[in-house]
Each structure stands twice: as structure tokens, then as C-alpha cells.
């Protein structure tokens, strides 16, 4: 009986770590930056199918993940890596498989073969997943034996906060206090077309591999069981750089995927 309870508790912990990652604000900021980079064709299709900006639907998948209808998608937010930074397929329970699947299905006019409601759901999912795969806490290394990449907690304003929860809620407000979506766009949407093209080059699998390599660093910057404000300033500064880069990657790649899908 006790073993069963432990298993249930472990399952719940696992499930809760899957969904959510960036806070709603960061997701919306990623959507807002992506909105600015849609081609006129993609923008027209966005308006036609979604009747909203990408920013509006950026957190949608987190809202519906807990309904029976979308229960399956709870496992489509994150990516897990092995020790060699290869992402784990896990029977489709990862973000990359579904970003690639939807992108391939819809590109080269493929979306024209789908009914409108499928297109709408696919666009909403992409809007969330492409941002989410870039969140540090959604790059998981639980198959890696290194103790540095295990789940741990820090202290934030005196309270114990787990790694995942930190990125869910506290992180965006900590690194950029009081920023709105517009502030994120104004401050981070500053790359040249050449830099943006470099970020967008490749496939979701390649982006994941890059994240798998890069997202180990944040685990080393936050010191377990330590108050965030007491951590070395250089760690926080580096963390801010990483957060900003991940937001840029998420935003530009999201626009790139949507533009490619609706390319005439």
C-alpha cells in the first residue's frame, strides 16, 4: 500500500513537472515578439484562423492541458536529454516530436488539406510549444547521471522554490522586473536579420540539441538552497543573458515556423 502511495506521488510529481514552464508573461512576450516578425501572408492567415495575436494564445496550452480533451498534450511541453544531449523520444511525450509533426504536416500547402479546426488547434499548439521548448526548466536531464542537472530547490524571498516552479512563476519577474510584453519586445527584439536567420536555421531536432547543450549551464548558475538575491551577481547577470537569448530563440523560431507554413 505504501509503495503504491509512493508511486502515485512520484507520478504526480512527474506530471506536474511536465506542463508549464515559462510564466504566462514570458510566453506572451515570446508570442508578441513573434507577431512582429510574421510575413504579410502569415499575418493574414493568423488573423483568419486565430482571430487573435500569437501573444493571446501563447499560454493557451497551459490552460487546456488539465482538461480531459487535451490531457495528452500535457506531455508535449518539454524535452528530455540523455548524457550525450540526445533528446528522448519517450513514445511521443516530448515537444520536439509534435512541433516537427505539425510543421511537416502543414508546410508546402499541407495545411490546405486540413479542416479549419485542426489548423486552429495546430497553430495554438505551435505557438506554445516552440516557446516552451526553450525554457531552461523544460530541458531536462534526468537520464544523465551528473548530480549538477538534477532537480533542486533555491530560496526566493525566503521561500523554498523548486527549479521548475522558479521558471513557472518567479523567473521572468526577477530578471526583468515590471516588464510588459511590449518591454520585452522593445528590449529583446533587436537582432539583425542575419542574426535572426542564424537562430532560425535548422530543424526542431537541431534546436533541441543546441538547447540540450546550452541549458546545462543554468543548473550550475543557481546555487541550491540559497536565496536568489544572495547569489553572485555575475551568476545572475549570466542567467539574464541566457533567459534573454532563449526568449529570442523561441520568438524568432516561432515566427519562422508560422511563416514557413504559410509561404506561398
Amino acid at each position, binding site marked *: 500500500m505504501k509503495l503504491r502511495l509512493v508511486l502515485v506521488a512520484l507520478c*504526480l510529481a512527474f*506530471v*506536474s513537472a511536465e506542463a508549464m514552464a515559462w*510564466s*504566462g*508573461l514570458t510566453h*506572451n*512576450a515570446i508570442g*508578441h515578439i513573434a507577431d512582429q516578425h510574421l510575413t504579410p501572408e502569415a499575418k493574414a492567415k493568423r*488573423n483568419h484562423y*486565430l*482571430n*487573435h*495575436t500569437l*501573444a*493571446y494564445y501563447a*499560454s*493557451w496550452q497551459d*490552460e*487546456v*492541458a*488539465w*482538461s*480531459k480533451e487535451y*490531457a495528452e498534450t*500535457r506531455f508535449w511541453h518539454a524535452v528530455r536529454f540523455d548524457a550525450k544531449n540526445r533528446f528522448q523520444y519517450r513514445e511521443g511525450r516530448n515537444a520536439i516530436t509534435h512541433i516537427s509533426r505539425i510543421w511537416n504536416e502543414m508546410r508546402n500547402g499541407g495545411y490546405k488539406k486540413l479542416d479549419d479546426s485542426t489548423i486552429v488547434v495546430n497553430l495554438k499548439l505551435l505557438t506554445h510549444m516552440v516557446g516552451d521548448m526553450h525554457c531552461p526548466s523544460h530541458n531536462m536531464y534526468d537520464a544523465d547521471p551528473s548530480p549538477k542537472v538534477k532537480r533542486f530547490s533555491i530560496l526566493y524571498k525566503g521561500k523554498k522554490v523548486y527549479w521548475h516552479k522558479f521558471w513557472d512563476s518567479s523567473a521572468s519577474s526577477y530578471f526583468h522586473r515590471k*516588464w*510588459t*510584453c*511590449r518591454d*520585452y519586445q522593445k528590449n529583446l527584439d533587436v537582432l539583425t536579420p542575419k542574426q535572426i536567420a542564424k537562430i532560425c536555421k535548422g530543424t526542431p531536432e537541431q534546436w533541441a540539441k543546441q538547447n540540450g547543450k546550452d541549458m546545462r549551464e543554468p543548473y550550475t548558475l543557481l546555487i541550491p538552497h540559497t536565496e536568489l538575491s544572495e547569489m553572485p551577481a555575475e551568476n545572475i547577470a549570466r542567467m539574464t543573458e541566457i533567459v534573454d537569448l532563449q526568449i529570442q530563440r523561441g520568438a524568432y523560431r516561432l515566427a519562422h515556423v508560422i511563416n514557413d507554413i504559410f509561404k506561398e
Partner: protein
Amino acid sequence: MKKIFLVVAFALVAFGASAWNVTQDEGVVVLATKNLTPEAKSMVEKYLGTSYADDVQYLTNLEKKKAAKHSKEIHYLHLDSSLQPMKVEGDDALASLEKMMEVVRTRNSHSKAEVVTALRTIINLMCDIHNFSYVRIEGVPHSQQEFTFQSYGGDVGKRKTTNKVWWSRFWNAYGGWHVGFSGNLWAEDLELCHGKQREEFAAGSLQEWVSQTAVQASKLYERIKPEYAMTRRERNELEYLNYEMIARAGYRLGKLFNELAK
């Protein structure tokens, strides 16, 4: 200690409780501004300038500074059991709106300060009359005061748990999806979603708009009572309804200013 807390909590709830949040109100104003005639634009700019930062929560800010001269009823719509406007001691939102509109209509016989106050009050109250938490219906006890209900996190997983939610907070912070939206982003998104309904939303008179809010609020109060258990799906549906109300407020505020400027 507990008593003091309760008194403070009640005072907060009873006076100047939460309406929509600042960015939602800004969204209403930006949307209205996009739909002004040149005549109305020039009238609004003459009195309020081009930045509405001080205007969107004018009444609430006065209340926070304890500098309010208006009645605490100013935010609310008081309706009898057949949903007709009711006279209350101190003007409610509808009565106040009508008075302020008259000031703007006869603006040449008023001081600039009076017209500024009237325009600011109109902006605030046009938001309030579209917010269900400000509707009080005779014979519906839970509409007369703040109450809580239960909101389910979801049908599956850990979100099966319920959270206690305050009625006014529910409509106000329903920024869940829209956190970080500025007024401009609200307006851009509202136009995308409801731009085609602009004429439909703005049609009718102030009294008809109030009546529409009243009918909708009455249905909501019938369903959502203290300790009601709301599903996640229902919560998301109400999010869309609230979103529509913000769009209605924006298009109607624009129309009102256009008419007043004539």
C-alpha cells in the same frame, strides 16, 4: 486582530474594490481612441491631452488617496428584480454617467476642470458598467456583496484541486491569458477578435447597454452563487465573455465620445 482584518477587508471590498485591471482599462481607452471621429479626437485631446495614463483609473486613484468626493455607489449598477435601474442614495454608475455626459454636452458653460473630471469619470464608468462584479440586483443577495466560489483547476492530474476565488477578483485578474498585455496590445488583439462586430457592439443607447449587462449578469448570478464549483472549461468560456465585454466597452466609449463631440 482578526476583527480589524475583517473590517479592513470589508472596507476594501465595499469601496473601490477591484474592477478590471489598469491594462484592461487602458485597452478600452485605446480601442475607443482608434474609433473616434476627428471632431471627438480633438475634443478629447483638448481636455485630456494625448496620454490617458492618469485617466483610466481616475476614480480608483482618488479612492486610494482618500480624496474621493463621490459616493461609494458610483461604480455599481443598481437594478430592481425586473432588471430596471433603481434609484439609490448617492448616484450609481448609470446616474453618474448621465450627469457627466450632460456636463460634456454643455461643456462651454463649465470650467475646464469640470469637463476634465466628467470625461475621466465617463471613461472609468464605461468600464465599470461592463464589469459583472459591479452589478447589484435587488432580491439577489450574493450580488449585494463580495462572495467566493470554488474554481476547479482541471479534470485531470494535480489540477483537480479547487481554489477559492473572489467574485470581483475573478473578473479583474482574469488576466490569466493576458498577463503582460499593455493597453495597446489589448486593443490590437480586441480589434482582431471583435473588429467585425464594431458596429453591432456600439449600436444602441447607454440604457440599452446597461440592460444588456444586467441580463447577462443576472444569468451569471443565477448560476454562480457562493461556493459554486466552476470547471476549468467554464472558466475559460467566461474568459471569452469578459474579453467581449472589454471590446464592447471600448467601442461604446468611442461612440459616446463621438456623439458628445457633435
